[in-house]
């Protein structure tokens, strides 16, 4: 259930994001999900890629500050209130979300990548409520 997300430290300057995507692309690594968190001075690029370990070592070799972070991915119906329902369950069980990003798969379902404060507890809570979690291998393939 646990997915290895790749996080990269980026300064806010032009061309850096492009460089990361080029390096990964040239190594034949595909990105399935992607988000950028930014502040005035720097940002953190977070992504789910086809081969996290390989991507990590390639970017390290290219002098990026990079690390793998455990996240989970919730598959939810693509309809009004679906996300609200999931978040309601989590907050009801005192699971806090550090950050999340989401994207629609099609008109039926959407994926929500979550970084909870307590990942094991989060998984248990979601499974208890019959929420669908995307497996790591599936996620890397998208």
């Amino acid at each position: 259930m646990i997915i290895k997300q790749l996080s990269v430290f980026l300064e806010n300057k032009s061309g850096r994001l492009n460089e990361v995507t080029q390096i990964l692309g040239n190594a034949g690594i595909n990105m399935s999900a992607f988000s950028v968190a930014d502040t005035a001075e720097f940002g953190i690029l977070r992504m789910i890629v086809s081969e996290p370990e390989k991507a990590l070592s390639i970017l390290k070799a290219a002098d990026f500050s990079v690390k793998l972070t455990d996240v989970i991915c919730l598959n939810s119906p693509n309809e009004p209130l679906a996300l609200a329902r999931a978040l309601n369950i989590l907050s009801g069980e005192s699971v806090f979300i550090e950050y999340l990003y989401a994207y629609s798969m099609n008109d039926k379902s959407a994926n929500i990548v979550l970084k909870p404060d307590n990942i094991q507890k989060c998984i248990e809570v979601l499974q208890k409520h019959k929420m669908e979690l995307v497996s790591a291998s599936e996620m890397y393939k998208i």
Partner: protein
Amino acid sequence: MIWNEKIECASREEMRTIQTERLIETVKRIYHNVPSYRQKMQEVGLVPDDIRSIDDLSKLPFTLKSDLRDNYPFGMFTVPMSEIVRVHASSGTTGKPTVVGYTRKDLNSWSEVVTRSLCMAGVHREDMVQVAYGYGLFTGGLGLHYGCENLGASVIPISGGNTDKQLQLMEDFGTTVLACTPSYSLFLAEEMEAAGIKKENLKLRIGIFGAEPWTENMRKEIESKLGIKAIDIYGLSEIMGPGVSCECEHQVGMHIMEDHFIPEIIDPETLQPLPAGEIGELVFTTITKEGIPLIRYRTRDLTRLNYEKCACGRTLVRMEKCKGRSDDMLIIRGVNVFPSQIESVLLEMSETAPHYLLIVEREGNLDTLKLMVEVQEQFFSDEIKQLEALRKKITHKLQSTLGISVDVKLVEPKTIERTAGKAKRVIDNRKL
């Protein structure tokens, strides 16, 4: 007015006699009371009796800032603590400050040299002196303060900062003399302009500026903006504090109080004394101090000496404005900063110190310090709040260690240029 004409206008022979007598006493006192310096003398086979005149001065070993650190805090004091009535401290090269102690007599000597300095600058009893140097461990505030009182001028002990109040008191009290760092005086001038205060409506006539390097151009700017005569005063806490030397009204070099501090100029590479007039590192031997007398203390300031009699009538040797440093110390807003201090702060954050680069700028008239820190793996967190917390922690630690604010910027690994051999840690963009 010349405060102590007998000394300040003494012939070279008279001065040499005073210096010789006091040097011999000082060497004896240190030899018998400071084990670390006694050992240095023994290593070169010297005993106090070998020092018979100031011509023997160059035989003596040097004292370094690191000696003060190694003997932290009071190991180089030559009197029992019961004789010490005041301590001051300045920043050391790493975490620990450099501590100095003063006996009652030392404080009197200090007041004397500051009073002489004030008289050189043209200050007299009727003056109202606003002391805007920091009061506290830093020697600037209290040093000027006691000199003014000794002269009989009125002191406004306002200390540094609090610009609105500075301007208010300057207007309301009719301040005639301002003592602060030269950059702060320019900042005050700007704030005056912004507040619509005209220099013609103030009574300011003299500025006593020191604790940081400044140029002749800055002097012209200060003098025209504030309508005053801007006088350069020099000192360092290890030797005494402000008043080690000061300019007279002719502004042609700072007169060194030679009956208290013997100056020498050495080549910082060979460590050999240089003839008068050559530029080299300034070295001082204190010959009246009781608390912490120092022999041949290397100031790291680069300058030259002029022994010609001055137009003011004084014969005290003059030193030029300092031309730079023979080490990597920076002076930011009057505060001494060593790159090694920053390194030790960063080392406290992680096991390996990250690459960093200090950038010093002069924005308007105030120096700013920016620190770029590479976010290598040991620092990198996937969460923004962690990175922000790291940045705040570094900022806060630096503020408390250095005593000045630093703008910390997190940058990507390898963005700071690597040079072969010694890493370039500092870029100073100020035109000093």
